[in-house]
């Protein structure tokens, strides 16, 4: 029996009006994503990748179409409902990390835990940081960490909440190759544990390690399926 999709988009369109010009970021996009899938959304800059991610993460709402995530219809969800949804369902990993500079690594993670209303607080934050290899860095502030370390803190913040959907926007964009691979490994592991992991990137090499690659161009899906040549091991990636 096939698992029920955790993300469903039905003819979703998102357009913005900038002055007198209407820009369509996503045009009639329909797709389903299953739990445990490591999905990469691929495409050049401006193709609508981040818009799609923001939509699934309830940071944005569709102009038309229907959007369901983790069983909730977000199509007409109000601001408050979307806040609650994000707390309970989504783990965000941003390209620019978006850590709070005045909080230590552990506290940044603890913030995510507290916001999600998950028990465990500090202990859970520390153990999650240990999982991402930052056991020695729990008391460090973001400016005392390297870019890769900061991204790992951001991942720990997303992981610690136990959210079923992990959304990562160019998570390796600011990182060197080795650190990037480490980060991808962590995300892979989350998919393996049954979470839905969506990674937005323009890096085709990263897509090779995904279970599924959805390619966008000008706001439309131009291809959807496993990577050409099948999913490769992370150790075989080069960029």
């Amino acid at each position: 029996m096939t698992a029920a999709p955790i993300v469903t988009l039905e003819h979703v369109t998102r357009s913005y009006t900038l002055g007198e010009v209407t820009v369509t970021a996503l045009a009639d996009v329909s797709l389903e994503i299953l739990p445990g899938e490591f999905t990469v959304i691929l495409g050049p800059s401006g193709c609508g990748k981040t818009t799609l991610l923001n939509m699934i993460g309830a940071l944005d709402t569709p102009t038309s179409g229907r959007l369901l995530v983790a069983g909730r219809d977000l199509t007409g969800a109000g601001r408050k409902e979307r806040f609650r949804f994000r707390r309970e369902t989504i783990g965000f990993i941003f390209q620019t990390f978006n850590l709070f500079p005045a909080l230590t690594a552990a506290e940044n993670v603890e913030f995510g835990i507290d916001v999600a209303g998950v028990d465990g607080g500090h202990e859970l934050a520390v153990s999650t940081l240990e999982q991402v290899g930052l056991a020695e860095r729990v008391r460090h502030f973001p400016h005392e960490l390297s870019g890769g370390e900061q991204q790992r803190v951001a991942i720990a913040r997303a992981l610690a909440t136990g959210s079923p959907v992990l959304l990562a926007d160019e998570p390796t964009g600011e990182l060197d190759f080795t650190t990037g691979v480490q980060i991808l490994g962590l995300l892979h592991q989350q998919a393996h544990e049954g979470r839905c992991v969506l990674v937005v990137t323009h890096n085709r090499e990263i897509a090779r390690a995904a279970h599924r690659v959805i390619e966008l161009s000008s706001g439309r899906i131009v291809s959807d399926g496993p990577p050409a040549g099948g999913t490769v091991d992370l150790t075989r990636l080069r960029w």
Partner: protein
Amino acid sequence: MRGLWLRWYWRDLRSHWTQVLTTALILAVGIGAFAGLGGMRQWREDSTTASLSALRAHDVRLDLADGSYAPRGALASALGGLPRGTVAAAEERLVVGSQIDASRAGDPVLVPARVIGIPSPAGGRTVDALSIREGGAPRPDRPVVLDWNFARHYGLPVTGTVRLAGVGAVRYSGLGVTPQYVVIVGSGDITGGESALAVVYAPLALAQRAAGRGDEVNELVVRAGPGSDPRTLATEVRRAGRTALPGVATTVTLGADEGATRIQYRDARNDQKTYWAFAFILLAGATLAAFNLVSRVVEAQRREIGIGMALGAEPGLLARRPLVLGLQIGTLGAALGVPVGLALSELIRGLVRDFLPLPVYASSVPVGLYVGAAILGVAIPVLASVWPIHRAVGVDPVEAIRTGHRSAGSAGAVGRLRRLPGRPIAALPLRNLARTPRRTLMTVVGLGATITAVVAVLGMVDAIDDIAARQETDLLRSSPERLEVALSAPVPTTDRRLQALAATPGVAAAEPGLAVEGRVRHAGVSFPVALLSYDADSSIWAPVASDGSRSGTGVLLAEKAARDLGVGVGDTVQLEHPRRDGGRLADGRSTVRVIGLHPNPVRVAVYANGATREGLGLGGVAPRVTLRPGSQAADGALQRALFGRPGIASVAPAVAEVEALRTTIDAFGAAIRIVVFITLGLATLVAFTSTSISLEERRREYATMFAFGLPARYGLRVSMTESLVIGVLGTLVGLALGTAVANWIVTSLLADTFPDLSTRLAFQASSLAITLAVGVLAVTAAPLATLRRMRRMDVPSTLRTME
């Protein structure tokens, strides 16, 4: 969870401590000024009331007409018929006009004196006790006490010897005051009369010797019994006086109507209006500045609020952090504001103590006002943070977390600035300002508010100085060394004594003249004036006409008097004045034409030429003589030569009138000068805090510049250029608003405080220079204080953290 947030609040406080502290200080100045200046009227009124009570001030004073005396005991015994309990205490005294020579080496002090002969100056007095402020109580070898105001004005020692006309040398034991002479009131209800009048407290016998009288008195002061109404008592005292001395003219004055008492309460009330104006200006300036600074600090957290919202945190939860920061600023501001207010209040009270020699000063603190100010202090930054928080949580999280989102929306302005000539790097400061127009506007408005306060306060100081300067220009325009000799009684202009006076060695020119008190009236408005004569062809001094003419029949009114009466040249006014009636002066009333206006800013002087004097029934009589000393005469020599000469009541230099006005103005201006310093301090604090916040806001940009190898001084140059633009714009705003506020203060509040003086806005170049120095130079230089922080900036760390 709570621990995390508490640590976060604490780190926010630590990382922004300079901004928090300086913004709190700015607030503290505002609310401190509000609380410190707000309670001055109550304190002064309480002090006056307590002092009048402590000195057992009289409720009623009966004095006999000039030249009339009563045997000692006659006035007091006349009260015997009053109902029991009406009178608590009564005392007879002799008040004598005289002259005093308190000259010291090279410093002539020769002024009219009023000797107050009292039965027991040393103590045990039941009415109008003598309060010794410095020195000791009188004793047989030092029998007199000098008025503290007079001695302080001329810098006389606490004890010493003076010469009194009709008495000779007399030693004084100290300096003191009585309720009636706590302040010395000059003509036109202007204080500062001590420059031209020395009150001397002496044993009754000594006063009688000075007057050349036997055991006689001419005044009775009475204190009402418990529950006795002073007005009823006044009526009974008047009746008793008439019964005891039939045919002798008497005047009864209520204690509450005594010039010194009336003016103390009036000044407390009027000065408070000015204090309130300054308090509100400082509070408004500090509020706007604090609002701007708090908003900017909170604004800097917008991105973090956006991240929190993206992670699903409730806006209410995220709003706590900036609210707590506002609360921290407010709490610290309130905590500092209370001592600032107390210190400011004490400073102003100290100044009041300097010119108002009361025996008792109230110690009360207006607790309600301070509590209100403290609440205001907390509320201002909290409220200031509400709007930026509202804006921050209202933004879509996806917008808020976008790097550089704050530059959005200003592309137009930046685009226009892109066309500025020169290298892009040179245009950076202007572009920085243009790409954040809201922040730039808030900073300009915040600085403008403070500069408004500076301009308003300086404008008031200048307006006050302008009054004295105009009077000096008018009165000392010619023969500034001239002397005004008041005669004991008016004499015919042909009198031989006048010729003798003119022939006194050292006199280059002498002109008999008129100086009598009167009242001018028109269309329901009236006020007291001094009717003075002039000769348009005078070789000594004559008034000038700023409008109309000096010739013809009629009077020259002060411009201010004409404005207050609503008349102009060619109109007529009613003049109440003495008139010759045989050998004496009787009350008269005339309708006179206004032939011209004179520029003296004091409205009391009404000038009449020879022809007009005749029409007023005052021709051929001279109660005063104006003398011009010869060029060879030493300073004060002529005054000394005329001292004590029979028939001469007083000899005063013309400059004394100018000094009297300056004394009054200086007493008032001292408090304002404190406000000037506070305002300048406030403006400097605003400049520094604004720069400090700018550095925080542009931290990453500076780090990028330094990473490219630009030295810290380049960052400083960018910062200083930005500050210069802000400073110029803020100063322009402040100058425009400040001029409007100053104009309102000068034409409304100051005019209320000094109803006899013509006030106008007259900025001095130095004030403009101070304003520019604070608004432009200090603001431009403020980034220098951040140079160390720029140099010590950890560039890699700053760049590593994504914002």
